[in-house]
C-alpha cells in the first residue's frame, strides 16, 4: 500500500535539556512534492531532518517517512535505505578519490549495479573526468556536487537537502540549482532547507517557515497573498502631503504608507475592483499621478515579517 504522504510529522518536538530545538511541528509532504523549510539559524531545520532520518529521537510527537515510524530503529533503518541525504557540510573523505567515496556509499546502500550507478551520477554532476582525484583537491562546489551524486546514487524515493548551496560562490550555486531543478522536473519528493529565499521560491512547491515552531506553510504565491494581500504602488509627479491621509480614509484600504515623498504603497482588498476609486480619490484631493502598478511583494518581505518579528506577533 502506498503511503498517502511520503513524509509526515505530528506534533514533532525535540528538546535538548532546556533548549527547545523543534516544537510541535506537523508537516505532510506528498509524493513528488518539493517542500522548502525556511528559517533563520537555530530554527530547527537540521534537527527536523535528523529527526526524519531517525538519527535523533523525538521528545514528543511522531515522524513517519515512507510509512515507517522513525522512532523505531529497525523501521528507520529501512526508511534510510530509500532516502538520499545531502548534509549541511558535504562530509566526504578527503584522502579518498571521488570514485572511492562513492563506492564506499554504494556498498553501504548495497546498490546492485554500483559501478554503473556511480558512473551515471558522476557524469550527471560533471565529475567523471575527475573520478580518480582525491576529494581533498576539490573546490567547495565540486565537493557539493559529489555529495549530491552520493545522495542520488541509490535512486532514493525521498531527498533531504540541508542547505545545498550554503557557502558556495555564485557560479557553483547556479550549477547546484540547475541540478536541483532537474531533480524537481523528475518529480523527486524533496525536503530542502535553506536560508535563501530565491532558492526556496524557485525550487519549492510549498514553503514552510519555521522558527522552532512551524510559523506558516503554503505555496510561495499564497504566502504573499496571505500576509500582504495585494499592494498598489502609486508614483506622484509632485509631493502631496495630504495624499496619505486621503487614502487612509478609504474603506477598502487595508494599509497605506509613503515609500518616499512621491511614492505611495497602498494595500487594498482587491486592486481590480478598488483601484479606479483609489485613483479618483487621489485626483480629487489634488494629487498628480504619474503611474500606478501592482507591487510585487517579495518572498523576502514575507519571510522577514514572519521571522523578523517577535514570535507572539506571528503565531
Amino acid at each position, binding site marked *: 500500500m502506498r503511503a498517502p504522504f511520503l513524509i509526515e510529522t505530528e506534533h514533532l518536538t525535540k528538546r535538548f535539556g532546556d533548549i527547545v530545538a523543534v516544537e510541535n511541528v506537523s508537516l505532510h509532504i506528498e509524493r513528488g512534492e518539493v517542500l522548502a523549510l525556511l528559517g533563520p539559524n537555530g530554527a530547527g531545520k537540521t534537527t527536523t531532518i535528523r529527526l526524519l532520518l531517525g538519527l535523533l529521537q523525538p521528545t514528543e510527537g511522531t515522524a513517519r517517512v515512507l510509512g515507517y515510524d522513525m522512532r523505531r530503529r529497525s523501521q528507520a533503518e529501512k526508511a534510510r535505505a530509500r532516502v538520499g541525504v545531502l548534509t*549541511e557540510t558535504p562530509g566526504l573523505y578527503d*584522502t579518498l578519490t571521488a570514485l*572511492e567515496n562513492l563506492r564506499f556509499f554504494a556498498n553501504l546502500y548495497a546498490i546492485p549495479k554500483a559501478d554503473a550507478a556511480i558512473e551515471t551520477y558522476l557524469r550527471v554532476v560533471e565529475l567523471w573526468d575527475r573520478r580518480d582525484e582525491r576529494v581533498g583537491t576539490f573546490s567547495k562546489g565540486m565537493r557539493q556536487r559529489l555529495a549530491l551524486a552520493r545522495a542520488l546514487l541509490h535512486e532514493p524515493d525521498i531527498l533531504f537537502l540541508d542547505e545545498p548551496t550554503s557557502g558556495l560562490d555564485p557560479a557553483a550555486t547556479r550549477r547546484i540549482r540547475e541540478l536541483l531543478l532537474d531533480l524537481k522536473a523528475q518529480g523527486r519528493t524533496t525536503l530542502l532547507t535553506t536560508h535563501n529565499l530565491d532558492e526556496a521560491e524557485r525550487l519549492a512547491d510549498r514553503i514552510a517557515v519555521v522558527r522552532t515552531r512551524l510559523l506558516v506553510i503554503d505555496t510561495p504565491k499564497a504566502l504573499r497573498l496571505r500576509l500582504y494581500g495585494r499592494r498598489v504602488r502609486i508614483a506622484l509627479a509632485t509631493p502631496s502631503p495630504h495624499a496619505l491621509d486621503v487614502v487612509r480614509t478609504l474603506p477598502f484600504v487595508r494599509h497605506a504608507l509613503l515609500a518616499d515623498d512621491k511614492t505611495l504603497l497602498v494595500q487594498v482588498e482587491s486592486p481590480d475592483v478598488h483601484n479606479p476609486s483609489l485613483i479618483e480619490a487621489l485626483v480629487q484631493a489634488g494629487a498628480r499621478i504619474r503611474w500606478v502598478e501592482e507591487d510585487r511583494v517579495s518572498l523576502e518581505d514575507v519571510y522577514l515579517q514572519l521571522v523578523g518579528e517577535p514570535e507572539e506577533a506571528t503565531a
Partner: protein
Amino acid sequence: MRWHYVRTLFIKEWQELARQRMIWMAMLVPLLITLVIPIITVRAIGAEEALDQDTIRLVQRLAIVFPELTTLDPQLQVAVVMLRMFGAMFLLIPVVGALNIATYAIVGEKRNRTLEPVLATPLRPQELLAGKSIGAVAIPMLMTWLGYTLYVFVTVFVLDARLRPYLLDTVSLLMVFVLAPFVALFGLGGGMIVSTRVNDVRAAQQIGGFVVLPVVGLFVGQALGWLIFDTWLVLLMTAGVFLLDVVLLGINVALFDPERILTRWA
C-alpha cells in the same frame, strides 16, 4: 551484526590509513628497533668477557622460567636476558598502533563531518563501531605478528640457533598471540574515548598516551629485574586487560549512539 557493512567500513578505513604516513611510522619505528636489537645484542655480547652483577641477578630470576639457562655460556645467558626484555616491544606496537589509528579514525571523521552521511545510511551504530575497531586492531596486529616472525627468524636462523627455545616458548607465544590482541583492544578503546572529546589528532594521541604507560611499565619492570614473565603472569595480565577491554567496550558502545555523535561529540 551484518558483516557486509563491517567489511565495507574496514575497506574504507584501510584505504584511508594506507595514505597516512605518520601512522605507519609510529608502528614501523618500534618494529625496526625491535628487529635491530637482537643483531646488535647478540653480536656485542659475543665480545663480553664476564657478566655484571645486574645481569647475573636477572639470569638467576630468569632461570626460574628456564632452568636450563644457567647451563648456557655467559654470553648466551646475557643475550637471552636482553632478548626477553625487548620482547615487551611486541606489546608496544599493538597498543601504539591501535591508539593512533583509533584517534585518527574518529577525530578525522569529526573534523571533516563525515559521520552524519554515514549514519544516514542503513548502517547500524554497532556496525560502525565494529568496522572501525577491526581496522584499528587488525593492522597493528598484523604488523606485530609479522615483526615477531622476522624477530625470531633473524635471531634464531641468522644469529644463533641455540636461542630458539627462549623465543618460541609458551610465554612468548602467549604474549604475542593472546595478550597482544587484548592490549591492542585496550589501545583502541582508550583512543576512541579520548577522540570523542577532542578535535585534534595530536591532542588525542597525547592524552591517549596513558594507555601506553602500563606497557612501558612492563618493559621497565623487566629491565630493572622486578618482573619476569612466566605463563601465569602472562595469563593473569591477559585476564586483567580483557576485563579492562570489556569496560572500555561498554563505554564506547554508549558513545557510539547516533544522537550522542551528532550532538555531543566536541
